[in-house]
């Protein structure tokens, strides 16, 4: 288009009116064109997928990769390892009374159940699955999960919270950061201890809620699983870090005040006839064990088994047990 032509068009009054009238139409066309917007008129060229014989040239359809989940046998092995670890925990604490070897077990279980298995298998979270499975006829859980839920409770009925000591990875990660634990005043301890029942109730309520509202908050707000997976939502990693920082000065805060499974273990432990004991005819009334216990589980020179987390610090600090006693002999 030459400039002369444009000018002539510009000067023609009727054309100008027509152009003004046409402008909205043109504009709407442009917008519509933008919406459909296809630079090419795309149409699917085929109705059915061409197969090897249509494609020719010796073409072979590649297999679609279908990576399998972890083998079920390995999951069963996890349950067996859980049972063995609890057995070892009972033996080390009640029979050997060895803090040192319990620490070895703690690190091993943190490595395996925590960092290697990424915090699952987890009896704590399984509370929710068991609850839903009992409440909802449509929902069922693998036998492995049933076993993971009941095994630590069963052990607690006979020997106390052996699962908490050295086996549970959430406990283990907190156990290893205990630095300078303060004794929490009794009243505060008792009040905070009630929190876990509230948490347990809330978790059960939300777990058995019908599907769109169903939520597994114990898992969602697991403070340490992000560390085990080495990835996670930022807010949960901060909360986990906060628990570990707090855990330097208040021993195992998650276990004592929040762990809903701890609430169940506490009640099972009340039935246990064996457990960590301050032996009456050996004791010196020196109070070193109570001082050594970061979890406030020794009151009036007696072990409070429901609160005892099987860490064996009391035995390690005792002048008549463990390393101190051996030193005397030699």
């Amino acid at each position, binding site marked *: 288009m030459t400039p002369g032509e444009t000018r002539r068009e510009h000067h023609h009054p009727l054309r100008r009116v027509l152009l003004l009238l046409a402008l909205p139409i043109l504009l709407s066309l442009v917008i519509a064109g933008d919406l459909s917007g296809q630079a090419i008129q795309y149409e699917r060229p085929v109705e059915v997928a061409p197969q090897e014989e249509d494609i020719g040239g010796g073409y072979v359809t*590649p297999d679609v990769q279908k*990576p399998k989940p972890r083998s079920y046998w390995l999951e069963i092995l996890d349950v067996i390892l859980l049972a063995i670890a609890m057995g070892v925990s009972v033996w080390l604490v009640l029979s050997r009374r060895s803090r040192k070897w319990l620490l070895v077990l703690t690190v091993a279980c943190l490595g395996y159940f925590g960092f290697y298995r990424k915090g699952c298998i987890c009896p704590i979270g399984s509370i929710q699955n068991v609850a839903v499975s009992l409440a909802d006829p449509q929902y069922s859980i693998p036998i492995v999960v049933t076993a993971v839920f009941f095994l630590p409770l069963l052990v607690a009925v006979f020997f106390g919270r052996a699962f908490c000591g050295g086996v549970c990875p959430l406990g283990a990660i907190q156990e290893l950061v205990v630095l300078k634990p303060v004794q929490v005043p009794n009243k505060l301890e008792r009040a905070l201890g009630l929190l876990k029942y509230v948490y347990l109730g809330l978790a059960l309520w939300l777990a058995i809620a019908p599907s769109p509202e169903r939520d597994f908050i114990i898992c969602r707000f697991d403070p340490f699983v992000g560390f085990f997976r080495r990835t996670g939502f930022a807010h949960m990693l901060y909360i986990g870090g906060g628990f570990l920082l707090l855990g330097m000065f208040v021993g195992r805060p998650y276990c004592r005040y929040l762990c809903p499974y701890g609430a169940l273990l506490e009640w099972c432990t009340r039935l246990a006839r064996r457990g960590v004991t301050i032996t009456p005819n050996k004791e010196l009334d020196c109070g070193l064990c109570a001082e050594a216990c970061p979890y406030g589980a020794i009151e009036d020179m007696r072990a409070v088994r429901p609160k005892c987390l099987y860490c064996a610090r009391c035995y390690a600090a005792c002048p008549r047990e463990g390393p101190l006693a051996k030193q005397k002999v030699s």
Partner: protein
Amino acid sequence: MSDNMTRRDLLGKVGKGAVLLAFGGGAAHLIRKADGQIVWQVDAAKCINSRLGEVGVEACNLCTTDCVVSQSAVRAVNEYSKCGRCYICPAYYQVKSAVDEQGLPSEKLCPRDAIERKLIGESDPEDPANNFYEYIVDEAKCDGCGKCVMGCKEPLGLGSIQLKVRHNLCVDCNRCAIANVCPKDALAQLPAEDALEFMDLKSLT
């Protein structure tokens, strides 16, 4: 005193017996209705990105943003036997982009450039539009944003690309974080053997 002790012992025994009985009963009930191994999987018939009739919407990328694994365990998977092997693949190309000098769209659809296009079969160099092309998702790059799945859906494509949970990447959260936010409740827990035959999931609803 000794009378008191025996009573306490008796109470303890009764309590223990009751608890053990309850455990046994509960466990037996759970085992009777137990499943084998269960895993999470995307139900393609419910997923917005692959569900028919959901057109003209932006691809849903909640699988990318909400998975607890940093690069989502949900990835786009092309079932090759169902793929049209198109010259201009609406999952590979941004078909709305300007045409380049070869007559192909100038932009790709995948934001991570995770799809590879490969000429296959008996080919005619004179007529590229009449040849067949394989579209291979590089799963190391894919983060399950679903754009290609939306692009491949009927009527544009044959729907051979779907979002799938990769079981070697999934950490088997007790409650899948994506399931918590999925607007179509498309993530389901299935027996592992069913979840592996994932392209037939459409029939499972």
